[in-house]
């Protein structure tokens, strides 16, 4: 097990290194720098600024420096935002993103599990139809469309929540709902399929034959067995939540990294784009790693090696 985790961590760094390298050279291929469109600097001034950012060095030296910096946890310095180090930018803006991201994933997962489970237990009833309808809406309607609609009705028209503001929990409600729809839909769908499968399995019938009531069967046997595979969709869920957060943060003016990323794209702030790309990749690969380990830990069939063939 320890060996497996170590191997995965090694892979993580290898992948990050590849991503960093590709990102670096892609960025260098881009024509122009952000300075060229900034207050017409004289050639001398431009040279000074370039030297300040180390842009006067050969590309290879720049690359070595950049990668070296990465190992020390330095993601470079932003061209915008008062020349702040990118790591500092991330530090300041991580909390709001994490908050709405985590809230959305937790809310979506819990509601999705409940909806999917009830739909499976009451298969082909109106609850099932409703659950299917809700999950297809959650999956289909892009988070930014939902965000815009929520903003218009709940904030602008009915004044229940702030339109665009970031201070207290209240202001995180709408972005959370907008982001939770997709995980909710996915989890509900997945849960329903899993649970229908589990409920028709032989061991559920055996559990019934033991004298368990319908709900005892669900709670003691069906839920646990259907919940284990849910773990596998946490990774993709994190990816989609991250994607969604970029626009949703923008729509609700939340000072998070998603909003930062979009801003740095539109202002050609390459160090920030690069830094955030690497940071995002790190975060997601880490989530996938944790999920894989978690899965091994909670499923007894995997935990004990390749048993079952004895």
């Amino acid at each position, binding site marked *: 097990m320890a060996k497996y985790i170590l191997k995965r961590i090694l892979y993580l760094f290898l*992948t990050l290194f*590849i*991503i960093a390298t590709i*990102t670096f050279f*892609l960025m260098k*291929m*881009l024509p122009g720098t952000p300075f060229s469109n900034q207050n017409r600097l004289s050639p001398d001034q431009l040279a000074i600024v370039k030297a300040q950012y180390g842009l006067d060095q050969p590309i290879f030296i720049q690359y070595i420096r950049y990668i070296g910096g990465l190992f020390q946890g330095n993601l470079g310095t932003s061209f915008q935002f008062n020349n702040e180090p990118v790591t500092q930018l991330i530090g300041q803006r991580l909390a709001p993103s994490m908050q709405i991201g985590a809230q959305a994933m937790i809310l979506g997962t819990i509601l999705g599990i409940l909806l999917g489970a009830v739909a499976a237990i009451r*298969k082909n009833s109106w609850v099932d139809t409703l659950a299917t309808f809700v999950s*297809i*809406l959650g*999956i*289909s*309607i*892009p988070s*930014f*469309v939902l965000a*815009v*609609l929520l*903003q*218009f009705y709940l904030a*602008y028209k009915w004044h229940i929540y702030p339109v665009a503001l970031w201070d207290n929990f209240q202001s995180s409600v709408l972005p959370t709902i907008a982001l939770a729809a997709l995980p909710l839909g996915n989890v509900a769908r997945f849960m329903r399929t899993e649970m*229908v499968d589990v409920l*028709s399995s032989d061991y559920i019938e055996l559990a019934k034959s033991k004298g368990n009531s319908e709900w005892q069967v669900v709670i003691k046997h069906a839920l646990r067995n259907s919940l284990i595979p849910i773990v596998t969709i946490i990774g993709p869920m994190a*990816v989609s939540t*991250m*994607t969604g957060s*970029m*626009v949703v943060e*923008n*729509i609700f003016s939340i000072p998070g990294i998603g909003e930062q*990323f*979009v801003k740095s*794209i*539109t202002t050609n702030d390459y160090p920030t*784009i690069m830094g955030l*790309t690497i940071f*995002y*990749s790190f975060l*997601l*690969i880490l989530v*996938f790693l944790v999920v894989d380990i978690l899965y091994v830990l909670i499923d007894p069939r995997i935990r004990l090696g390749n048993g079952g063939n004895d």
Partner: protein
Amino acid sequence: MEIPQIPKDKFKLLNNAGNKEQEKIGTPALTYMQDVRRRLFKNKVAVVCLTLLTIIVFISVFAPIIAPYNPNAQHATLSNLPPKLGNLNIPGFNGYQNMGGKMVDAYAQVHAPKGTYYLLGTDYLGRDLLSRIIYGTRLSLIVAVLATLVDLLIGIPYGIVSGWKGGMTDNVMQRIVEIVSSVPNLIVVILMMIILKPGLISIVLAIAITDWVTMARLIRAQTFQLKEQEYVLAARTLGESSTKIATKHLIPNLSSTIIIQTMFTIPNAIFFEAFLSFIGIGIPAPNASLGTLLSDGQKAFRFLPYQMWAPAIILSIIMIATNLLGDGLRDAFDPQSSD
């Protein structure tokens, strides 16, 4: 127990032995595709979605004929007009607008020529929204279809080769797939968009470059299974060429996987296009796509909500219909997958 009274002649042996009728199979056999079609058309939701999508595709294909105005023609004087449906007085579609608490005929205010009406109103440059939505949908669909095609062109051969060759080739090809898929999709797409010039081709490439991996994986897994099937083994033993085996035996058997996966790639591509355009690095102005229309609509929605509604609804309908149709197809191809 009493013994029932039965006429004696009923007790004659029928001599059933060797009766061939017994081995007859009752129901006529359907081919696989007939069966799939029958199941698909029995699924009402799928049929409704298929119809909706057909209509949308039809309108998009014939956009130049159907759109009432040039989607990029600007009329500075006729900007931000609310929807008006002829001279019919339907609330919400009568050209009236709430201005300072009073309903005002916006068309009269700007002295629009008589007989001028915009079904879904106009945007801030006085462009007809309906025409823009029709053209925008067309563009979004083109992006989706092209991205899916590129996706198929890379993913299917890659998957087949990887699965068919196996061994070292497969190993190397799978490591590449692993690395590509360990980078978050969106980041690759965004990086591609920054590097390439904004535009249709860039979006298509950016989406396809990340999407083919899923297809390649599915196809590889299936090819692996098919390779071991007796009829493929038989074809190999008979010395059929690899290309012939691929086209004659593999592709037809992979078709269900391909069709189903395609139905999930299309909404994904539509989503990415809208997403990129929404954050401003997608389709460049003045062309409209569902993403740019939504982005424009969002900026103005406090005062002119109609500008946001139409693209939001169309985008949602396309997404819902493709997803549901995908579900329907999956159930039709593989009846066991649905409970």
